[in-house]
């Protein structure tokens, strides 16, 4: 059953991807803009400029450009970055792992903190910790991740400089990574000095990214727990004389999980999207920082490639969330 569902969902993603490709292209090619102007040297002639345009295929009519782009895309070729003069796919692949590790760390943080806060609020329901959790959740949702980032730089990078505020790893460490997944690789190899440096560099951006999601998870989990706690089977458990903590963890939590996963799923895509700005603030070498450079430098192939990559990522994340939901669902009926 889940397999058939997965196949159906994958099939549904294909027209979406095609649509994304069209929007992506139209957005950046039909709108006026001349990426070549950036690279005209002093003293270049009109012929030099024409040569550059031809080199990047910009002298062709728009439909021809689109067709070529799409054709290349289907072959996994995202074109060549004008500014970095390397294949876009290679660039994306070399930078994406840094972003993924950051986003995953942020998600783990958010889930752990969110669950702790949500459960805590219910455990101490009606007392001051609940009000504190509500306050934190309200603030967490009102302050967007990039403002958190700025505040963290101010507090922990400048006023009390205990954590690094730029980069991914201490440049003086000799690393010799074979994969671009530094954190995973150094964990697997058991090199804990590298793990320490990586985590120290990721700490502030990850917290900034995690806080809004933490707030959402805490709030949804709390209201789902409130609902679950009022169900008959909880009353039964109470009658049986189970402790409050035990009831929350064993009975209510399981049932509160499904709505929490479903509702915070969208928020997780926001977290991934938020890496764009957070990487900028913390000079983190991920795909988002590269995206802003590309936008500022009008590097059309690179912008298109990054947008396409994020779209694929979002579709995959949504797919994952749906699958989680399907996997979790049978357990709901148990209650």
């Amino acid at each position: 059953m889940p397999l058939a569902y997965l196949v159906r969902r994958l099939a549904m993603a294909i027209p979406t991807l095609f649509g994304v490709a069209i929007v992506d292209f139209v957005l950046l090619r039909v709108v006026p803009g001349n990426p070549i102007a950036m690279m005209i040297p002093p003293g270049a002639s009109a012929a030099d400029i024409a040569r550059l345009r031809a080199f990047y295929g910009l002298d062709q009519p728009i439909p021809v450009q689109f067709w070529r782009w799409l054709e290349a895309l289907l072959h996994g070729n995202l074109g060549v970055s004008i500014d970095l003069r390397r294949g876009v796919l290679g660039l994306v692949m070399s930078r994406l792992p840094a972003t993924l590790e950051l986003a995953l760390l942020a998600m783990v943080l958010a889930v752990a903190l969110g669950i702790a806060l949500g459960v805590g609020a219910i455990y101490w329901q009606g007392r001051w910790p609940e009000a504190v959790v509500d306050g934190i959740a309200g603030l967490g949702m009102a302050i967007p991740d990039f403002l958190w980032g700025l505040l963290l730089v101010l507090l922990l990078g400048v006023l009390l400089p205990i954590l690094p505020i730029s980069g991914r790893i201490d440049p003086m460490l000799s690393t010799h990574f074979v994969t671009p997944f530094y954190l995973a690789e150094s964990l697997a190899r058991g090199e804990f000095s590298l793990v320490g440096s990586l985590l120290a560099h990721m700490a502030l951006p990850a917290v900034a990214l995690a806080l809004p999601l933490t707030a959402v998870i805490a709030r949804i989990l709390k209201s789902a727990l409130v609902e679950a706690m009022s169900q008959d089977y909880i009353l039964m458990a109470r009658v049986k004389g189970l402790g409050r903590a035990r009831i929350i963890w064993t009975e209510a939590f399981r049932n509160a999980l499904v709505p929490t996963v479903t509702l915070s799923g969208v928020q997780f895509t926001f977290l991934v999207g938020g890496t764009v700005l957070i990487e900028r603030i913390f000079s983190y070498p991920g795909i988002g920082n590269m995206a802003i450079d590309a936008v500022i430098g009008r590097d059309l192939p690179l912008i298109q490639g990054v947008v396409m990559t994020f779209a694929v990522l979002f579709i995959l994340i949504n797919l994952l969330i749906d699958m989680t939901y399907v996997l979790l669902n049978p357990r709901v009926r148990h209650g």
Partner: protein
Amino acid sequence: MSDFSRRQFLQTVGAAAAAVPALEVMGGGAALARDANALTIAYNVDLPSWDPTSGPSAVNPTIQSIYKSVFGQFIDQNPDLSFRPGLITKWGWNDDKSKIAMTVREGAFWHDGTPVTPEDVVWSLERAADPKGGNPIQFVWSKIGNFKISGQEVTADVKSYEPALFKWMAFLTGFVLPKKAYEKAGAQGFEKQPIGSGPYQVEEFQRGAFVRLKAFPKWWGGKPAFENVVFKFVTDPTSRVAEVESGSSDLTLNVPYEEYDRLRVKPGFAGSARPITDIGMLFVTNRPPMLNRDLRLALHHAIDKKAIVDKLLRGYGVPIDTLEAPEYEAFDPTIKVGYDPAKAKALMAKAGYSPQHPVSFTIQTTRGYMPKDFEMIQAIAGMWQEIGANANIEVYEIAKHFELRAEHKLAPLAFYDWGNAIGDPSTSTGFAMFSPSPHSAWKSPKLDAMIGPLWGMKDEAKRIAGYKAVDRYIAENGLVIPLLQYAQPILYRQGLTVVPHAAGCILPQTVGRA
């Protein structure tokens, strides 16, 4: 450890001792730093590519420091912009300027250990001249050809005379690359493992994050003070300040002047802010209402450049009236425009404008691309308001500026920063004002007739005099509004000696320990 000489040891200890007060000041943050043998530079731009001779990054002045650390140029440039031998030690024209001769340095090596040969020099020049090679300055390099090698000497025929040819050899794309290693590795392979002949070799490069360099023991220029150099790419100015203040980096550049003034006087830090070859200027485009000479001159006279430098740039900068900075060859101190609000008002009246009947136009500027660019334009707009000119400020990105300029579609006035590290008038006044150049905004046959003959003029004294005359004509007619020469703020921890380079480069091989 055996080659770790006593002298180096003493240097290291000295540096460590000098660093102690800084460590105390910064408390916990300093724990993040510091290897006494390493220099960490918080650098303001990312390095896009390792080929210093092709693509847009090759003509990006802000990354030349990194290229100059790893690669050797044909000819080098001193901090005061004068020229000195690089990989060629002697160079010159023959009498009728139909041939050039260059002597290739003996005892220079590539980072793979093989010697730098005249073949490498010829190959690099031929590659640069090849239209398919992607060298943005190809139009200069293609002016020589038919190379001949005899011993260490290389001669070539001049196909068309370019007065600044040897200056270009110290400027953008004027780098020698290794023929054998490049042909073996190919363009992509070279990106992964760049080989130069400069003072430092690439040890590790993480795109978007940092590049770590190691001193090249066989460099012909002697051993630099620091064994390791890290360029950390920190594009955000606030983060760069924090990098140095927290002790994570030893040196940074291009931070806000306010921050520069604050940190410079803090114990444990030092700094320099010397004028560099960047000119903040306003392009005037020949379209209404700027076709009126009185208006153009009035606008120029109404700008209090000294007040802008003093108040906005906190004194860091030099007011300027032509496109030539004092360090440039064609600088003429007698060409003055001057701040004169009364004269400006009179000129406006002559042009038919007054605060009651103001003229309106658009002025374009970047924001945050150069220090205080946008604020400067706001201040200037305020000054113009007094004489009856309403400037509507439009902000764009620098990419947009290039686009509009290439299409001759800039607003009547547009802010830009004109860099000219070699200080030749052809690469400032020439390209900025000659109408066939895609970089000019004021296009007029009169100006073209004046500049045209100067391009290939073989008598150097006459050429410089010619450009001075052009600059005077431009100033008298208000065809461009130069504002100021920028100063580059460099901040570093105490205990370092930094030689500011007038071209705005941060060369790690010139950084020492006090």
